[in-house]
């Protein structure tokens, strides 16, 4: 059955790269109705095109791969999302905007576990598709998914922020107080621009993620190394916290796990701590994570940024995978962490999709999305040094396209 004409029309349009200027357009001002309608018109223009292109990318998969139930499921999810969202007429009022926002939120939730599902599907299709093609497909999928979520989450956040501000203003009005702009130094309006936090403290992010990963490690292994954070601990950047959090947890997870494993295999009496150093460059924040987890062998270094397809058991008993690392057990959702991070950390022992070597390649894609980088140096027999560079969203050129 040929795709409906609307679909083909969208799919053939060009993608406009997300502009940082667009993301930061409404900072430092209480949001107005015009802002929200402006945001929705941008979002409404961009999302269906990108969703359509994702759907098309599935059409190009080999037939046998497309019939795999996991792959088919994700395909249908994307198709549904496109179907639901493109059906909205052009929005010029707050009521339909709210409907769209709620629909968008729902779709975002539905599409939350796309990556693990696709991974499962590709795992089952290893024989039907060469590795390079699978890698290319996943890279494209992840990159475009980051873009979709950035645009989508940004609007949803703005929409909620606007309504929250409206609610507060109305409350103040109702209680016969004059409407005053909130003058608290770190009011939400000041600091957040949709999903972007303009005064994110990397040091605090490290602490929070460190604690969380440490307790997961303790839960699984019965022991965990300590960590300390030094360097420019007071520096802040503008970034999307969930991205930063995901990358950080992934890296710390690897560092802690490697340290515990190496301690046990070398009969070390205590775990050397993980050293985290924060540095601030011009528009960048650098994070160096040093561990003494024994390093990664030369052979494995070639594969750490590849998506690895380990064999999986059907039951959720202990199963370790490639050098890219699995997470300590964590099937319960960790409060306060984004859905993304939770899912990522579930990838591992006891989680729904065990033994996936996805963490590092994905972390690198996230790091690179706003112009940052992720590099790993391995000192075999000793440990690893990880160099993460994140570019501050605010600090970058206004019309930078991503």
């Amino acid at each position, binding site marked *: 059955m040929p795709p409906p004409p609307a679909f083909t029309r969208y799919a053939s349009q060009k993608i406009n790269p997300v502009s940082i200027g667009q993301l930061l357009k409404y900072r430092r001002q209480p949001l107005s109705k015009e802002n929200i309608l402006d945001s929705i018109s941008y979002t409404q223009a961009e999302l269906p095109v990108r969703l359509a292109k994702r759907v098309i990318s599935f059409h190009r998969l080999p037939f046998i791969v497309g019939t795999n139930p996991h792959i088919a499921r994700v395909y249908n999810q994307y198709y549904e999302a496109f179907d639901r969202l493109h059906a909205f007429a052009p929005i010029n009022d707050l009521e339909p905007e709210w409907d769209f926002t709620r629909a968008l939120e729902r779709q975002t939730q539905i599409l939350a576990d796309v990556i693990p599902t696709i991974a499962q599907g590709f795992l089952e299709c290893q024989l039907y598709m060469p590795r390079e093609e699978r890698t290319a497909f996943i890279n494209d999928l992840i990159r475009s998914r980051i873009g979709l979520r950035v645009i989508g989450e940004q609007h949803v956040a703005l929409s909620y922020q606007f309504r929250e501000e409206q609610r507060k203003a109305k409350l103040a009005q109702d209680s016969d107080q004059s409407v005053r702009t909130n003058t608290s130094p770190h009011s939400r309006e000041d600091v957040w621009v949709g999903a972007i936090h303009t005064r994110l403290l990397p040091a605090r992010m490290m602490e929070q993620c460190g604690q969380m990963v440490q307790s997961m490690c303790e839960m699984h292994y019965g022991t965990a190394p300590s960590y300390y954070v030094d360097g420019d601990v007071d520096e802040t950047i503008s970034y999307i916290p969930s991205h930063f959090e995901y990358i950080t947890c992934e890296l710390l997870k690897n560092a802690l796990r490697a340290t515990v494993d190496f301690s046990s295999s070398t009969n070390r009496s205590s775990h050397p701590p993980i050293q985290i150093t924060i540095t601030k*460059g011009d528009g960048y924040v650098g994070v160096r994570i040093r561990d003494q987890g024994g390093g990664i062998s030369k052979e494995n270094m070639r594969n750490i940024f590849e998506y690895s397809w380990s064999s999986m058991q059907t039951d959720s008993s202990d199963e370790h995978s490639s050098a890219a690392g699995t997470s300590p057990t964590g099937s319960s959702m960790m409060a306060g962490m984004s859905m993304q991070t939770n899912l990522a950390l579930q990838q591992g022992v006891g989680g729904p999709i065990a033994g996936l070597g996805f963490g590092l390649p994905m972390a690198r894609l996230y790091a690179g999305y706003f112009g940052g980088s992720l590099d790993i*140096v391995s000192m075999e*027999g*000793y*440990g690893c040094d990880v*160099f993460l560079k994140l570019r501050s969203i605010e600090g970058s050129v206004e019309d930078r396209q991503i």
Partner: protein
Amino acid sequence: MLRHAAPLLSPKRTASAGACAKQQFRRASRLASGSYEALRLNTTAASSSPTDSSAGGSHMRVGGQGGRSLQQKFYENRILDRYTSQEPKKVTLRQLVLFGRQLTEDKLVASANYVRTELPVRLAHRISDFQFLPYIAGTNPHLKMVYDLYWRAFDEFRKFPVVKTLDDNRRFCDNVEKNLLEHSQVIPQLGMGVSECADLVSPDEIDRFMNQMLISRISRRTLAEQHIALSRQFDTDLRAHLGLRPAESFAQLGNAPAGFSTQRIGIVRADCSAAQIIHECAVRAAALYEDAYHLPPGSAPQVIVEGHTDATFMCIPAHFSYIVHELLRNAMSHVMRRFAARLDDTATTKGAVASSSSSGPAFPPIRVTICSSHADIVVRVSDEGGGIAPPDVLQHIWSFTHPLKAKHLRNFHAIHRMEARVDEADAVSPLLSFGFGLPMSRVYARYWGGNVTVHSLPGHGVDAYVQLPRLGNVVENISARRASPFVASF
């Protein structure tokens, strides 16, 4: 303390030939942007028979009548082709050690002949590289000087008679040593040459050329120096005293004689202690900087060595020293510059007051971590010197010719010799930078299959990593001429 090395060519000869060649080069570079016609070679100039084998020597003049001798060489190139068609016979450190441990008279003679035949092959490949440089670069007087030097050496070695006796070997070694000395001007000349060609040839091509030149140079010097060292170790008097026959080696004795070690073979050490070399380099670098900045001893940044401090590996200590020294120099210089204010404090409170002060070291220490695994050793040099800034400089630290380095490369005019050895550091002020240290260190590392990488943390410091194989079982990383791009071969 700057000691001037004696220039090796008589100044007058260089000057006149140089002036003529310089004129030629300048004219040619002006024309480079203009008509192609003007650069066309005059093809009727070749006057001697191309098959005349003695033609090799007579036209190898420094500078000389530029156009004519170049055209001469075009036909003489057939001699070169016989050598470029051969692949270099590469060795590993382990082979050098095993060979040297069982040194007999026959083996020493065989080594001499290996060097005698191998050097011309390796030289030929590099001469060929010169020939494939764009014409305009080839006419640069500095590059041309190196080219002519290489041709002369190539010719000498290929014509050297077969070595049959120890006496022959002695003559051969003298010849090789003279050659090594004569060629110590190659690096400064190459440096000056490439800096002058920076706008005429793409930086990538120049870097590729330089990397190949330098790695091959190290390889030839390594073979030569190893053979000379073995020849010296082959003590005929001691052998006579111990009653050894020509076909017997020291290794066959029950106890090795005094001064003979199975771990120290020529310039190779089978059990080199990384920590010891690092300590030596640290002491040397500290002394250099304290001297240059007129500081009391002990004021340079401290170097702390951690990790697998008892790690040993098979290497040529001089090579490893060079790399470590360069990295420590960079670290120290960055740290001292960053905390320059503390420098003034130290300088004014000289002597006893500073050294007995309990306020601790003026500078944050440089931490060197040794990491050893079965097959590799990694040394991390970590400093808090503020990092490499601005960020775009980072991309070019490995380049030999980037415009940002042009001012450094001109410093080459101030010196005549550079062998890129650690002991040279005493002769040249550490404040004189050539921009060569890092790329050169990487060449030394890559020669035996290792690498040097640098990560900069802007606003904080630099982590530099030297990775080298431990077991000496990696083959020399040299290439034949016009091999696939340098970058891809790693």
